[in-house]
C-alpha cells in the first residue's frame, strides 16, 4: 500500500463515518479563547485537522499546546469560540455527552499516565472493561494492541517495572483500544532517548498512514517533526510494515505543522514552509540559536 493509496482511502466515502459528511474535519477550532484569571492562554485560535491527517503542534513551554488537547477532551472549557469533533460542536456538552465523545478519542499522555495499581494488561483493557465487553474479546483486543506497540512480553508487568519508553508505548496501546478516530499525543517523547523517541514517532506514523487515524502531536522536539513529516509507513506483500523517506517525487500531504506562541498561532503550514520562514522567533525555535 503506497502513501497515495492511503490518501485515496482517507477521502473516499467508504472510509468515512456514515453520519458525517465527506470532507468534515476530524477536529475544528473556531476562534477559541481561554484565560486563567488575567493570563490569556489561547487567543482566538482557529484551525482544522482533516480526517487522516497528523497536525504537529509546536511551541515552547506555556504556549498553550497541551491546553488545546485538554480542550478537545473537554477537560477544560473554552471561554469563547467553538470546538467541533467530526462536525459536532462539543462546546455546550455536559459531562455525559463529553464521555460519549471521549470514547472516540485516544489520548497519549506525556509520562504515559498509566494506572499504578493496574498491570499492563489491565491498563490496556481498562476502556473495554469499563464498557463491560466480553472477557475473550477484551483479551484479543489487548494482545492485538500490545503487538502493535511490540510489548506482548510485558503483559503481566506492573507500570513501576517498565522503562520510560515502555510506559509511553503501553499508553499508546491503551489509547488505541476501541479503534478511536482521533488520537492526541501530548509530548509523548519528552525525556526519552533518541531511538525510543523514534519508536514512538513510528507508532504515530503507522497510525496515520495505515490506520486512517487523525491526530494532534504536541511536541517541542524538532527531531519529532523531522520523523513525522518526512517518513511514511507502507506494508509489503507479506504484511510487514516498512518506513520510507519522502523523496523528490513524493510530497507528504497528511502532515501539517502549526506553531503557537503565547496562545496565538504564529505559523500554520508544511514542514518545508516552516523551515523556509524568516520569522526570527521561529528560526530561533528551529535552530536553537
Amino acid at each position, binding site marked *: 500500500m503506497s502513501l497515495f493509496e492511503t490518501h485515496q482511502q482517507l477521502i473516499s466515502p467508504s472510509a468515512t463515518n456514515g453520519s458525517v459528511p465527506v470532507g468534515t474535519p476530524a477536529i475544528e477550532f473556531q476562534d477559541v479563547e481561554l484565560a486563567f484569571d488575567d493570563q490569556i492562554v489561547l487567543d482566538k485560535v482557529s484551525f482544522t485537522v482533516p480526517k487522516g491527517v497528523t497536525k504537529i503542534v509546536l511551541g515552547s513551554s506555556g504556549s498553550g499546546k497541551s491546553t488545546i488537547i*485538554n480542550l478537545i*477532551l473537554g*477537560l477544560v472549557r473554552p471561554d469563547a469560540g467553538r470546538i467541533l469533533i467530526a462536525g459536532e460542536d462539543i462546546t455546550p456538552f455536559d*459531562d455525559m455527552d463529553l*464521555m*460519549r465523545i*471521549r*470514547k472516540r*478519542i485516544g*489520548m497519549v*499522555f*506525556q*509520562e504515559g*499516565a*498509566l*494506572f*499504578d495499581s493496574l498491570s499492563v494488561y489491565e491498563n490496556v483493557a*481498562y*476502556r473495554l472493561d*469499563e464498557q*463491560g465487553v466480553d472477557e475473550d474479546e477484551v483479551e484479543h483486543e489487548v494482545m492485538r494492541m500490545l503487538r502493535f506497540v511490540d510489548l506482548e512480553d510485558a503483559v503481566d508487568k506492573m507500570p513501576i517495572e517498565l522503562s520510560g519508553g515502555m510506559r509511553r508505548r503501553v499508553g499508546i496501546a*491503551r489509547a488505541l483500544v476501541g479503534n478511536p478516530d482521533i488520537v492526541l499525543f501530548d509530548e509523548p517523547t519528552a525525556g526519552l532517548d533518541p531511538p525510543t523517541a523514534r519508536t514512538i514517532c513510528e507508532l504515530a506514523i503507522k497510525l496515520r498512514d495505515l490506520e486512517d487515524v487523525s491526530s494532534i502531536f504536541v511536541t517541542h522536539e524538532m527531531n519529532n517533526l523531522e520523523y513525522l513529516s518526512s517518513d511514511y509507513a507502507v506494508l509489503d506483500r507479506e504484511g510487514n510494515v516498512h518506513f520510507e523517506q519522502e523523496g523528490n517525487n513524493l510530497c507528504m500531504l497528511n502532515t501539517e505543522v502549526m506553531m503557537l506562541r503565547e496562545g496565538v498561532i504564529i505559523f500554520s503550514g508544511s514542514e518545508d514552509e516552516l523551515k523556509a520562514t524568516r520569522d526570527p522567533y521561529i528560526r530561533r525555535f528551529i535552530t536553537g540559536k
Partner: protein
Amino acid sequence: MSFIIQFLTELQEVGNLLWRCIKGLKKKPRYFGEIMRQMDLIGVGSLGICVLTGFFTGGVLVLQVYPTLDYYGATSNAGQGVATGLIRELGPVLTALMVAGRVGSAISAELGSMVVSQQIDAMRALGTSPARKLVTPRIIALIITLPLLTIAADMFGLIGGGLLANYLHSLDPNIYISSVRTGTHVEDLLASILKPMVFGLIIGVISCYKGLQTTGGTVGVGISVTKAVVTSSIYVIIADFFLSKVLQSAFSGTMF
C-alpha cells in the same frame, strides 16, 4: 471577606462532587468490587488502631472517674460512666478522628498522586467519571465501615474500663457489667451508629475533594493530605456538636 468567599466556593465544589456521586449511583457500572476493596482497606485495615484507641480510652475513663465516684460512694456506677461517655461521644468521635488520620490521609494522598501523574485526566479521557469510580466507593465504604469500627472501639473500651476497674480498684466484674447495662440506652446505641455514618460521609467527601484539588506536584500532595486530615477532623468535631444536639432533641421528643 476573601475567607468567606473561599469557604463558600469550597462548600459549593464539595456539594457538586457529592451530587455527582449521588447522581452516578443509578448508572452502570456500579463498582461493587471497588467498594468491597475499600471496605477491606478502610475497615479491616483500621480495626487495630480503633480497638486500641477504644481500649485505652475506656481505661483512662475509669482512671479519671473512679476517684470521684469513690468520693461519693458510687463506685458501682463506674460501668455506667464509661458506657455513657464512650458510646455517646468518645467512641464515635475518637474512631472518626483515627480514621480521618489514617484513611483520610491515604485517600487524599492517593487521589493527589493520581492528579499530579495525570492518571485522573487519563481516567476522564478514557470515558470514566473519577467521581463514580474513585470517590463514590470510598464514601460508601466509609459510611458502612465507620459505624462498625465504632462498635468495635466501644466494645473494647468497655472491656478496657472493666479490666482496669477490676485490676486497680478490685471492682467486681458483675457489678461493672450490670452498671454498663443500666447506663446503656437504645438511643445511645442508635446515636453511636448514626453519628459515625455522618462522620464517614464528611471524611470521605473532604478527603476525596482535597485529593482531587491537588496542584503543584509532590509538594502539593503533602499540602492536600494535611488539609484533608485537619479539615475533616475539625468538621467531625463541629458535626458531633450539632448531631448530639439534634439527636438529643429528637430522642427526647422536643425537637419539633
